[in-house]
Each structure stands twice: as C-alpha cells, then as structure tokens.
C-alpha cells in the first residue's frame, strides 16, 4: 500500500502544483530584486493634484490617492514582504528546532517545562501575541519587527520536531551511534536533527505564506516595522480603504500580489509534503 518516495527532489518537482509554485516564486524574487531598477521611485508623486488615475499606459496598475505608481509600490512591497517572511521564518524554524530537539532528546523536567510553556503560548493566537507586543510599541524598527514575528512562530515547530525526535530516539541507528560512544550533542545534531529535516522544510515553506499574510494583516491594522512611504502590501490596502469608491484598483493589486505569492509558497509546501509524507497527500 505504502509507496516510498524515490530519492532526490525530482519527486516533489514532478507534482505539477509544486513546479508551478516554484516557478512563480522564482519569478517573484527576480522581479523584487531587479524590478525597482526599471520602475519609478515608489514614493514619487509626479502630479499630486491629479489624485488617483485608473490603470492604463504610463501607469500599468494606475496610481494611488497620492498619485504614486501602484506597480512600483507593489514591486517595492514584494521586497519587504519576502525579506520579512524569509528572515522571520528562518528565525522561528531555528528556535523551534532547537527547543524541540532539547525537549525531545533531554526529556525530564526540561521537556515538561518547555512543553507547558509552548502549550500556553499556543493558546494565544499568533496575531494576538503580536498585537500585545506591538500595540504600544510605536517606533519599532524593521529588524525588531522581523524578530518579533520570528519569535512568535516557533511553538508549533518545536512540538513537531519534539515528536519526530521522540519517534527517532529508539531507532536502531541512534542506538548504534550511542553504543559507538557518540556524545549526546553529536547524536542530537548529527543523527536526530538531519532526520527531522523533511517536516521542518515543509513547515518552513508553508510558514513563508503564513508570515506574508500575517505581515500584511499587521500593516493593515497600522502596526509593524514598515513605515510610509516605504511600500508594504497590507498598508497599501489600508490606504486604499478610504478611496474604495473612487479608486478601487488601489487596493486590488496589492491584494492580488499577496494571493499569488502566498499561493505559490503553499503550492511548493504541499508538493514537499507529498514528497516527504506520501500517505497524507
């Protein structure tokens, strides 16, 4: 019944959704990196009295209420979104892996204390953890913002890594390593951690999409480390809200950018999940 995946990434690549998702993600990264060199300054206001202009030649996505080019702002927003998502996810995955490894491998009271704390933290939705942290923190820097998002995203990862470690702990290869005299640290980092990489990679990929939505949501509430006039997708949608009647395109394009990016990341995550865990495809 259970078919084992053939080795190597090609199996994930063969899932067509993953291929499409990866292609879109690469395209978005390229656009975010080189795009701004070919586009007007996202903060420029060529004709402030003109107000918003609908999409058309000159301004492919139109301009917003301050007559700024929306295409340039969407591309600029991609830079911020990807930067925040990649760094925050890297942080939360690292912390989650270390905590999960410590709890699962050391066991005892370390495990009990860590997992009680994680359970309690999981009881507060991540959005609210961040709301509590950011509500009175007005002048937060981008770095602190990224650290805050990363520091609130590792709870579920640590639980996942812990359960993987508990499952692997009794496996023959770990017993063999121990009987060969490998140190605890060596067993943890050289034998246990590499074997939990599959689920970690899946969580990380799905986490990227999640953090992009989260960052957009916080910016939409007027919070976060991205301050105008630096463009951020969530903030653009917030700014578009009052001019919804006269310039609906101002909010349309940043939203579409969020959807395409998150969907692409999720497609890659799903394909990786199919690859690492074919039973739950």
């Amino acid at each position, binding site marked *: 019944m259970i078919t084992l995946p053939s080795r190597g990434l090609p199996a994930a690549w063969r899932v067509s959704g993953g291929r499409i998702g990866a292609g879109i993600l690469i395209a978005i990264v390229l656009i975010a990196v080189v795009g701004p060199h070919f586009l007007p300054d996202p903060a420029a206001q060529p004709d402030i009295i003109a107000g918003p202009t609908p999409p058309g030649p000159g301004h492919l996505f139109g301009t917003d209420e301050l007559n700024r080019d929306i295409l340039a702002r969407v591309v600029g927003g991609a830079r911020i979104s990807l930067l925040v998502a990649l760094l925050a996810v890297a942080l939360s995955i690292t912390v989650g892996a270390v905590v999960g490894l410590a709890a699962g491998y050391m066991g005892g009271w370390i495990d009990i204390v860590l997992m009680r*704390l994680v359970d309690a933290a999981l009881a507060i939705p991540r959005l609210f953890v961040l709301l509590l942290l950011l509500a009175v923190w007005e002048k937060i820097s981008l770095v602190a913002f990224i650290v805050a998002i990363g520091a609130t995203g590792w709870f579920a990862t640590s639980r996942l890594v812990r359960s993987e470690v508990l499952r692997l702990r009794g496996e023959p290869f770990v017993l063999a390593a121990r009987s060969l005299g490998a140190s605890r640290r060596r067993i943890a980092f050289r034998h246990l951690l590499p074997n939990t990489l599959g689920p970690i990679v899946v969580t990380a990929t799905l986490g990227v999409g999640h953090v992009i939505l989260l960052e957009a*949501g916080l910016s939409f509430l007027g919070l976060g480390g991205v301050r105008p006039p630096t463009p951020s997708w969530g903030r653009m949608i917030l700014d578009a*809200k009052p001019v919804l009647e006269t310039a609906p395109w101002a909010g349309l394009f940043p939203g579409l950018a969020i959807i395409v990016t998150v969907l692409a990341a999720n497609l890659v995550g799903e394909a990786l999940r199919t690859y690492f865990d074919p039973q739950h495809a």
Partner: protein
Amino acid sequence: MVRWLASRTAQAAATFVVAVVLMFFLMRLSPGDPLARLVGDRQVSAAELASLRTRFGLDQPLLGQFRAFVGGVAQGDLGASIAYYPTSVSELIVARLPATLLLGGTVLIINFTVGIVIGVWQARHRGSAGDRWLSIVSLTAFALPSFWLGLILAWLFGIHWRLLPAAGMTTPALDPGAGLLPRALDVARHLVLPAATLCIITIAVTIRHQRSAMIETLTADYVRTAQAKGLSERAVVWRHAWRNAMFPLLTLFGLWLPVLVTGSVFVESVFNWPGLGSLAAEAILNRDYPLVMGTALLVAGAVVAGTWVSDVLHVALDPRVRV
C-alpha cells in the same frame, strides 16, 4: 472518566493561567508608553501625566502591577479602558459580544454543514476533475487576506452593484417603530457580506480536514464489508464511513476557534461590524492596552475552552477512546 475529566480540566486551567502570565509580560516588556497615544500631541504637564500613571496603576513596580492584574482577572475585572475611560473593559466586551456571536455562529453553522458536504463529496470522487478543482480553490482560499476579500466584496456588492449594505449591523435610518421581522431582515442583510467573507476564508480548513479523514475511512475494511452486504450508497457513506470521519472534525473545532476570532478582527473592522473583532482593531488604533489585553484574554480563554470541549466530546462520543 471523572478522574480524566478532572485532570483534563485542571490542565486547561493551568494552560490558561500560564497564557495569562505570558500575555502580561509580553505587553509590559514591549518598549513603548501605553499613555503615549492618549497624551498624543497635547500639552500635558508633568503633574497631569503622573496622575494619569497613578490612575492606570503604571506608577507601581512591575510585580505590583502584575499582582493587581492577576487579582483583577481572577475577579473578572479587567480594569478600565484608556480610550473610553471610565468605562470598564468588561463592560465594553459584554456590549460587543452579541454581534460577534451572531457572526461567528452563522459562519460556524455554514462551515460545518457546507464544509462537510463538500469534503465528503471530494473524498468520494477523489482524483476526479471536480476534486482537483475544489482542491485548487481551497488552496487559493488559504492565500486570501480576509481584509482584502472583505474590501473587494464590499466594493462589488455594496458600492458597484448596490445590492447589500457594506457596513454596520443595522440601518440607522430604519423606522424605530418597525416590527421584529423588518429589524431581523435588516440585520440579516447586513450579515451577508461579513459572514460570506469569513466563510470563504475559513471553510477551506473544514473541507480539507473532512476530505482527508473521509478518504481514510472510505478505504477501511468495514466500509467494503458494508458495500458487499449490498447497503445503499448513502448508508455506506454517511452511516458507516462518515461516522468515523466525524471525529477529526471535533479536533478541528478547537483549532477553528482562533481562526474565526483572528479572522474576524479584520473582517469586522472592514465591515464596521460592532463585535469584538472591531473592538480589538479599535483598541489597537487607540493604543488602548487594557482593552487589547481584555480581548486577547478572551481569545485565549476561548481557545483553551475550545480544545477542552473538543477533547471531552471526543471521549464522550467515540466509543473507541477509553479513559
């Protein structure tokens, strides 16, 4: 059973207590002055500022503030709101609760009926064109920012086509002497767009859980036995397979509450729905930290209670689970 229930309840209580402690320190360790927004650009004398600090207990040492906070929470007193001073946080929350329950309840019912039907259909037609399309649609729904979808629907149905009200819960111009039915219809019309937005965002979770649970039970031996006995398709699917594919949905109930609550922060504020979500968004905007704390406390309580309820239902309904 009684012992299990007692220990599960104690565990839930402990989780909530630790969550409350975490929340307090999260908020107080954040570098920022809770009174900054209240004072704003106004000229405030040092004496006035000091009296404000005393009023909100901010002049106390951190441990003293913590003791006062925990003592207050234990008595159901969440302190006074800063923006609505002297109205208490609990009063504000109680006033906003009915609207959120109406919206959340509607979405819950639609999710767990439509979501189950679609998930079961997909599992039965696994791999078909319809299944693949629905999977793509739910994957896209996962990528939708709720506030954006809300704005687009508000623009389309409220502004462009003028079919439905795009803001609020009642029509202010409605005749105050109107009967119960016109009033209910008015609220229902206002309910359509926020409920639809929240449903679209959250139903994909139900569908996917139901689909994978159902796929698992449909391949079980007892389902093949039921088919071999010549039972009708409907009896096999719903009475035999679904009965067992229902339990993962109970777990989902606990997971689902936070999704609904965090989703409604955005959706309620987009549609100016007078519930807890828009109250939380307002509190954020005003930097009204006691109110932010109050709503967060309520959400954490709901999450803990949700997982507790789903665990208890699991034990009560699933004869295979023994405690």
